[in-house]
């Protein structure tokens, strides 16, 4: 039977073939999913800001479910890699998917680029740095998204409402 873990803003979780990870209400935050299709392990992070401003940052464990607290997209990529390797993943087989980075309020984020765009760019750059290919991206636009990641298959379902 599958175990479903919900992560919220600035949280990260990893799982194996019996796990499903979901996160709801993704706006300008970026959801980073890394998956090892051979070992069938992977993880998801819901990062709120693009880059670590004052390093070093200690990654805290959020609760008894083992979720981590990571607010920066670049640090979220690093932490996801470490956490997935720790449960048996092999970095050479990793692929990534990105979801989110929307531009919902032009008043807050300007007309073209904003925090959503910066989050996306930061996640892309960090994945490239680690030589992890981005398999799929559903980023940008002006809509919110719900995301469901099945660690058994690597399938990511995205729900939008408008």
């Amino acid at each position, binding site marked *: 039977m599958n175990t479903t873990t919900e992560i919220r*803003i600035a949280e990260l979780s990893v799982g194996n073939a019996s796990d499903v990870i979901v996160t709801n209400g993704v*706006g*300008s935050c970026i959801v980073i999913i890394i998956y090892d299709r051979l070992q069938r392990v992977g993880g998801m992070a819901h990062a*709120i800001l693009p880059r670590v401003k004052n390093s070093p940052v200690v990654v805290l464990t959020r609760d008894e479910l083992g979720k981590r607290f990571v607010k920066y997209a670049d640090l979220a990529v690093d932490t996801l890699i470490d956490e997935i390797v720790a449960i048996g993943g092999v970095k050479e087989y990793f692929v990534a998917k990105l979801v989110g980075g929307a531009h919902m309020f032009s*008043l*807050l984020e300007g007309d073209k680029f904003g925090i959503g765009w910066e989050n996306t760019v930061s996640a892309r750059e960090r994945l490239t740095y680690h030589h992890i290919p981005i398999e799929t991206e559903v980023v940008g636009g002006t809509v*919110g998204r719900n995301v469901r990641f099945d660690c058994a298959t690597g399938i990511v379902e995205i*729900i939008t*409402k*408008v």
Partner: protein
Amino acid sequence: MPTLFQLTENDHDQLRELVNIGVSHAGNTLSRMMEKRITISVPAVNIRNSETTLRFTDKEDDITVAVLLRLSGAIEGYVFIFFPRDTALLLLKELSGKKIRDLRALDKFDRSIFQELGNVITGGMLQGLSKFLHIEILHSVPDVVVDMGGAMFDSLSASMIDLHEEFLSLDVSVCINAEPTDVMCDNGQLSVARMFLFFGPEATNTILKITNDMVNKTVQ
């Protein structure tokens, strides 16, 4: 995490009172516009950061309408007015006579109704605050967004935390058409809108300096 805001209980009381003054003016304007009785809840004062982000307490994937306005002038900040699905449809019917079942079907005209609601509520509130604090506060053209409530809070949190590592969140619920015996909006079923004010550390300090000076003068 060290907090930027070392707010005392007295500061909390002053901020709550300030919201009461502002939102009462807004409620008065809204009441005249809609010809309905309006009540408001006790304002909540919270310090938000990435660990205590804004959480959407209802069904976060329900479609809702939100109006965002930027404040400028003597203090800078944001006003966020949030209308849950059912009340957004009710307000639209009351104000334009238009009956629709799905918020996703809002056209340009319908959105302008919510823009106007944002103008009326925020304009009324700023009038009250400006008079009380003796400062000039202006607001921008309202930005209307229709989407999942959770996603809007997600975007707001990200932008606010990007601007200020920590920020002050003041929120209050508004009830329309309350019973004559009701004196206060009870955050629950009757609430038709929720209003948030967001201020960074600089604006918060400016507000508290003014209110503390007022209190000290009164005491003397």
